[in-house]
Structures are given as C-alpha cells and as structure tokens.
C-alpha cells in the first residue's frame, strides 16, 4: 500500500519506524559523514518548526526524509523543552495535513487504520449537497474533534448515523492532523535521559534556537497581583451576579472559585467575592475554597473548567474576541493580562 515516497512524506507512520529498523542503524552511525544529509535535514526541520511553526516539504532524498524525523524528535526531546516539543509536533502535523488532504480515500483509510487504529468505513454518501467519503467511528471522531473549535466540528452539527460520523476526505485529513500531533508529542516524552555523544552539539545548538525563537523559559505566567480588568466576561458576570445577590448555580460558583484560586487570589479575597450571595455561609465557603485550592480532601488543586463545559452548563456569557482564541477562562486571563501590561514572553503558538 505504501511506497518509500509515502514514508518520506509521513515519517511518523509505523511503517517508517519498521523501515528504519530494517536498515539496522544505530545512534553512533549518526556521526559518520554518510549521515550528514540526515543531520542537516533534521536541523532544518527543527529550525523551521521553531522559527515559523511550519516544516517545508523536501522530496529529493527519501532516506534523509525518513531518518531525519526521528533524529529531530530525539534532539528536541534531549533538550527537555516541552513547549518546543509541542511546537514541533504541531508544525510536523500541519505539514502532514497539507499532504494528507491530497491523498486518495484508500490511502487515508489505510493510514487511519494501521497507524492510528481507527475504525472507519468508506461510505460514499451524499445526503444533501456535500459528498462524504467516510464514516468515522464515534469514539475516534470525538477523541480528535474535541480539540477543534470551529462549530462545524461540534457533534450536533455532524451527521451521525449508526455510530458513524460522516466526514469528507479533507475533514478526515484534518482529524488525522490532530492524531499525528498527539502521536509526536507522546513519542517525544519517552526517550533516553543521557545525551548520545554525536548529538551533544546539536542539542546545544537547538537549545539556542529555542531561546531565540520562543524566548527564555520564564516563570511569568500570570500577573502576580490578580488583575480584575483581565478577567473574562463569564467570570466578571459571575462576580456581578453575586454582588447583586442573584442566585448563581453550582457550576458558576465552582468556575469562579477555581478561576480565582488559579490566578493566585488570596483565600480571603475569594471568600469575600461570595459574601454577597444570599445563602452565604463563611464556614462552607472557606471549606470549599480550601478544597478547590487543594488544601483539603484529595489535595488536588482544581483547574478552571473548559469553555466548552461552561457553554454546556450555561455559564459562558457574551464571549468577546479574545474568547474566540482560547479554550479556558484562565488562558483568556493570561492573554488579556499580556495585552494590558504589554509584556511577557512570546506567545506560544496555538
């Protein structure tokens, strides 16, 4: 089904790993001059991913394409920089998407099944204007679509027929992009702790690239003093409702408390926010806030619910422009705080 040219296009496939195993190459071979095209290409992949968030295609040297991908991944993993790994995974996944969307349904079907273990059917259905090539099993669809924000990916907006979600060829390629990204991130998280000698200088050089393009890893995440102006509309609304003595349902209260805990508001301030509630009990509120902050019970600090959850439970309120770029109220807060203060590290690629 797949040719060597395919493996060069999609070096994350299981078949590509098998191919490399068959070549019988060890990490020490990398130092030999024969491998310089591989190393060069590996570094180019990294440099492009870090600088532009994209990796361009090269089709000339198929072996270099296939071999350079795991080398890039290895170098990056050895830097231990997770944000760079995520950026690389995204860049490679996007590159794959551009190629996948031009493949035949048969090839897409094969890749989805063999590398990613999907269950899907070729359906050739046209219930309306659009033509659908695939029915994807619900679980495989959802695992990937939950990361995608456009309304067209929401399940109620899909055709769901006996457990199969209809998808066009192009949509299948887009869902596979998510799968590719996840696979690359997972792959980079299980690698040797020690740096193989031939790669030492490459790892150092890549660290330099990461600093250059992604900035110094900084502990700056959130403003040190909670900044009310940076809060998202839903949280402001919750605070206003409480202040006016309106009833706020459980999910709203949990959202507010977990949001405030996570932006580093003090316990006293959080309890104060709940004070105007008509059923306010200082003891209960304090207990619950401590629980959410991870000081009680399971000792887990709770994070703020995702925007999608808030939509489902009717907590989302008048989403604005920043809302369309984020998936959690805390990210809104980070974004807005950065805009307000006009500083902070370079924005991580989305």
């Amino acid at each position, binding site marked *: 089904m797949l040719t060597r040219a395919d493996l060069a296009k999609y070096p994350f496939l299981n078949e590509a790993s098998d191919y490399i195993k068959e070549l019988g190459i060890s990490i020490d071979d990398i130092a030999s001059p024969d491998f310089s095209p591989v190393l060069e290409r590996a570094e180019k992949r990294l440099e492009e991913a870090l600088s532009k968030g994209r990796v361009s295609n090269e089709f000339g040297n198929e072996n270099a394409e296939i071999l350079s991908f795991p080398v890039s991944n290895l170098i990056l993993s050895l830097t231990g920089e997770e944000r760079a790994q995520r950026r690389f995974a995204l860049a490679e996944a996007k590159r794959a998407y551009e190629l996948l969307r031009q493949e035949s349904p048969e090839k897409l079907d094969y890749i989805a099944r063999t590398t990613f273990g999907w269950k899907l059917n070729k359906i050739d259905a046209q*219930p*309306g*204007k*659009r033509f659908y090539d695939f029915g994807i*099993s*619900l*679980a495989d669809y*959802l*695992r990937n*679509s*939950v990361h995608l924000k456009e*309304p*067209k990916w*929401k*399940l*109620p*907006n*899909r*055709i*769901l*027929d*006996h*457990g*199969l979600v*209809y998808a066009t060829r192009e949509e299948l390629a887009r869902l596979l992009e998510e799968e590719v990204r996840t696979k690359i991130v997972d792959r980079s998280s299980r690698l040797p702790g020690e740096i193989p000698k031939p790669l030492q200088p490459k790892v150092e050089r890549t660290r330099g690239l990461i600093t250059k393009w992604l900035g110094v890893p900084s502990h700056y995440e959130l403003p040190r003093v909670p900044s009310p102006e940076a809060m998202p509309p839903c949280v402001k609304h919750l605070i206003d409702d409480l202040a006016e*003595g*309106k*009833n706020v349902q459980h*999910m709203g209260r949990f959202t507010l408390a977990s949001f405030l805990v996570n932006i580093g508001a003090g316990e006293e301030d959080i309890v104060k926010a709940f004070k105007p509630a*008509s*059923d306010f009990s200082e003891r209960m509120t304090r207990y619950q806030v401590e629980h959410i902050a991870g000081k009680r*019970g*399971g*000792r*887990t600090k709770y994070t703020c619910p*995702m925007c*999608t*959850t808030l*939509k*489902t*439970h009717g907590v989302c309120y008048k989403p604005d422009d920043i809302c369309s770029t984020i998936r959690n109220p805390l990210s809104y807060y980070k974004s807005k705080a950065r805009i307000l203060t006009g500083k902070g590290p370079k924005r991580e690629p989305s």
Partner: protein
Amino acid sequence: MNQAEQVIRQKFQQYYLDPKRQLDPPLNPSEREYGFLLFNGKFMVRHRSFKDPLSLLTAVRDLVPSHVYFSTAYYREPTAPMEEKGWTGADLVFDIDADHLNTPCKPDHDNWKCKACGTTGNGGAPKLCPKCKNDRLEEQTWLCDRCLQEAKEETAKLLEMLYTDLGIDNEATRLFFSGHRGYHVHVYSKQTSQLGEEERREIADYLLAQGLDPQLHELEETSVGGTKLAEGPLIGQPGWRGRIVAGIYDILGSEMDQIGLTSTQVHALKSWDRENLLRKPFWNSAKGIGISTWKTLVTKAVEKKSAKIDTVVTTDIHRLIRMPGTLNGHTGLLAMKVPEERLDEFDPFTEPLAFHGQMKVKVKVSPGFRLGEERFGPYHDETVQLPSAAAMLLLCKHRAEPIA
C-alpha cells in the same frame, strides 16, 4: 433520627432482610465503588467495594441505607482515596428526571417556601423568592402520572437516538426506573467506556442539540436569478437532518399557535399539506413561507425532538448512581430494571411497589395520587389507614407522620 425516619428504616430493614431478596448489582461489581446514604444524620458511607453480590447484600442488610449507589466508573482500587483509585473506564450514563422537565401539572403537586420570609407558592421553585429576592427556597415535589409520562417520552427519544444515531447496541444498554421521578439509561461498552469528560459532553450536547446550527445542516437561502429559494435537509436523511424534518411534521400537525409565528404564517402553513414534507424537496412549496418561518420551525423542531437529559450526570466520569433493586429513600419505591421493549407499558406506580400490609399515618397535606389500581387523597390534616406502599410514600415525602 426522627420518628418517621425510624419507621421508614424499620420497613426498609424488613424489606432487605427477606431471605428471597436479591440485589441487581452492576457489571464488573468488584471494580466499582459503592456508597450508602444512611438515615442516621444523612451520613454518606463511600469508597466501599464488594467482591460479590452476597457481600454487598450483607452490607445493605447491616447498614439499612436510605439510598444505595455505585460508581459508574471502574477502578483498579475502588476503596482508595479518589485520586489513587486508578480510573480504568466508566459506563456512559443518562439521567432523565421530571425535575428538569417543564410539566404543566407542577403547580398542582409541587410547592415551595422561602426560608427567609416564609412566602409560599405552587409549582416548581423560582430561582429567587419573588417577595424578598432570597434564593434559599425549600421545594416539595411530588410524582404524578403526567410527569412520569413525560419522563418516559424523553427516555424513548433518548433510546431512539442512542440506537439509530450513536449506533449503540441494545444489548449494551440497560434501562432503569429511578424509584422517584425519572429513568436512568446505562451503556456498557468498550467503545464508550474510555470516553473522557469532554467527549461525553459532546454526546450530551448532541442529544440536547445544544449548539446545533441549522446552517451546518444545509438550511439556507440561495438566490437563483433574483428569486430567493430556501433549501434544507430532507426526511429520511440520517441524524439530526431527518429528525429536524420529522419534528416540523409533528409541529405542523398540532401546536402551531404557541410557537411565535404570526397569524398569517400560521394560516399559510395550515392551508399547506404537511404531507409535502415526506415527499421531496418541499422547502419552497408552501406559499408565503420563507426562510425565516422555516428557521423558527426548525428551532422548535429541534427543541421538541431533543432528549432532556441531565448533562451533569452524563459528563461526570466519577459519578455515583442509584443501584437498581434497592429502595429509593425519597419514595419507598423500588429502583428497578425496565426491559426496553416494555418501557411503553411500564407503570411506575404499580411495578416498583415494595411494601405490603396496612399502616396508619397522620397526613399533613398531600395531593391526590394513584398506586396500583387505587386512588388516594388529596389529604389535609387527617389520620388514615392506608396500604403500606401509600403510607410509606407519604412518610418518605415528609407529607405524613407515623402513628405510634
């Protein structure tokens, strides 16, 4: 424990001690967490696990809980603290409860009281007290034929979507009456057990049609040579598309006056043969009906056809849920399995009755109700001799006191 609770507990104990008694434990019983709400000070015993149905029954006989629950989740160590349990999967569960339905009979049997100023009212409790704007409202609910009939209809819609849209095998589903005001559906399948909260939320949104955009189902207006033409989904198309049209068909057959259409629009639709919906294409065949009227109808159709599930239950992958075969402390009725093909004929006021004999109680106030073939009440400050099931219902609903 007050006197009523003592009597209820005693009757529950007799029920569970019956030598023929069997519980209906869930699949993979040893991988679940169990929880019991006790009469004694409303105390919850959690994080328990049982090797087999018999040891579970023994615990129920010893504790005599007012409510018995098990986790929808499977754990490696069900008795460990929450974060160390080792989640390995969870049933996909759905809860349909009259609490979430807007039935017209609620003013007849539900009422509320403001804890702050004492104002009272009939029907489901408002969010705020209309007099003092306080939100501490005490609600007294009742279970009636009408409410449970609507819950049943919602359940039927849910099952239909689970089978035809989600492709869930009916061998993998179990349907239960909750013993109070609704029904539970559990799905046991490898495919769905691994779904995370976000994925389950998408499923909940699908069943409720939350976020459904008709345009993404190809409802739109196109312009052909200056003439505006409506286009949209057709009957028989899979998923929400066909269901939207089926919903419009239902609406055109009945309740057109209350859905916010003008009298001209209603008139135009009434003089149009709705059977046109079943032939295709129909979107331009009704005179005087354009895209905006269709949009109103689509919105109403979606509302009508969606299944009113409780989203919190479905999205929670660590939830405790009532165990069938146990008594519901809110009513004294049995939570029980209902074969899906029997849902239509299932009578929640006959089959789940658990108590026999007679009891004397002093009823404060109660709406009229039916159990089995017999009608009871309404009562107001009177002492009555009743079949035990009826007396227990009144005691459990805090509508009566026992007579020593």
